[in-house]
């Protein structure tokens, strides 16, 4: 029976190079803190030859690990530097070239353990059915019917944020930071001019047309001011729709 097992072709899919390495180590019943790097590297490469990759990226992930293994192997085979030569400052012993790999493997082992915990939780949770065939079936309706923000709009939110910014920054205008070309009254005028020729402007397009951050801020503040003065209105056709700016009509 035992013999038969060795002839079985493993069709197991590995989730990545760490998964494959962990499999090799566990199969060989090796101490993870003392990996026989030559042996494991050979096995890893042998597996790599047999593996089929779905895409280039996947192959690259596995090849990167192969390169890492070979690098560690080379460092292990090289003669160690003489201790007297370089006085070790931080630790007594020099760093084992395998250490980083061991740490990554240990971390990944935890990931696998957690993933399998989640999997059993998932299997368990799927035995509990909610009303009407799905937790999330009427989430949209539920969300639409309750209104946690009341009368507050996105504009209020942004305004609050801008106001906070201003309170934190010593008056920029006094320091002459925003140049004349970004003055808010100018921007207000230019928005109104544009609205005289176009019935409506997309919010996104309005800001996208601005060259610098200061220009964007000035335009944005100008827009807020126009809204406050009720010279323009903003609306959305639909939730998630474009924010559209148009002249205020009585």
């Amino acid at each position, binding site marked *: 029976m035992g013999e038969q097992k060795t002839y079985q072709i493993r069709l197991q899919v590995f989730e990545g190079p760490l998964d494959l390495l962990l499999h090799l180590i566990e199969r060989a019943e090796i101490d993870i803190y003392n990996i026989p790097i030559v042996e494991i590297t050979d096995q890893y490469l042998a597996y790599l030859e047999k593996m089929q990759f779905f895409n280039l990226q996947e192959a690259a992930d596995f090849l990167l690990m192969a390169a890492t293994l070979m690098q560690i192997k080379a460092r292990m085979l090289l003669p160690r530097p003489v201790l007297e030569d370089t006085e070790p400052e931080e630790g007594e012993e020099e760093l084992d070239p395998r250490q980083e790999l061991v740490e990554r493997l240990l971390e990944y082992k935890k990931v696998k353990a957690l993933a399998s915990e989640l999997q059993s939780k998932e299997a368990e949770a799927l035995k509990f059915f909610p009303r009407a065939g799905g937790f999330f079936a009427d989430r949209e309706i539920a969300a639409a019917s309750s209104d*946690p923000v009341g009368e507050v709009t996105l504009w209020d939110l942004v305004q609050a944020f801008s106001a906070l910014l201003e309170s934190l*920054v010593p008056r920029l205008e006094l320091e002459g930071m925003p140049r004349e070309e970004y003055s808010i009254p100018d921007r207000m005028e230019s928005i109104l001019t544009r609205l005289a020729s176009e019935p409506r402007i997309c919010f996104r397009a309005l800001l996208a047309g601005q060259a610098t951050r200061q220009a964007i*801020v000035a335009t944005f503040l100008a827009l807020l001011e126009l809204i406050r003065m009720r010279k323009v209105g903003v609306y959305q056709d639909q939730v998630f729709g474009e924010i559209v700016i148009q002249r205020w009509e009585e």
Partner: protein
Amino acid sequence: MHLSFATAVIEALIFASSEPLKVKEIAGILGLAEETVRELIRELQQEYQEKRRGIQILEVAGGYQFLTNPDCAPYVEKLKKVPRQPTLSQAALETLAIIAYKQPITRAEIETLRGVRVDSSITTLLERGLIQEAGRKDGPGRPILYVTTNDFLKYFGLKSLDDLPLVDDWSNNQQLAINLTAD
């Protein structure tokens, strides 16, 4: 199958079905005669009725369905259309704005920016589902980090956080402020 277990299964089936469930379908799933199923449903209905519970099983559109007890309707209605919440306070709004633009952020960081305690506005925002906890920050005390929720995006009509209107960058401004006062 024990009839008491069959009754439990029928209860579960009627509950989980998205439409009024027909006796025929129940009978098919359980491998019981339709008459038996009908009898068990009748018992279930009676049980709910006698105890004057909050929910009951009713025959609707040729099938069976759970519905809330009409006596409870005035309360259930309050649930459905959660009365228009009072508008967010200025304090809550400012806290929300900071979290939206600076997330993930800790309570202490928000307090530094606002210059006041923000416990109550954080509670309000958590309750209204606009923000949520999202792990802890590395470092002393491992304080809780706050982020905005998907509902936050929904209520403000945003597709993603990148849709938040640009506001001159906070960190740059602070830098600037420091530079200005240092001169």
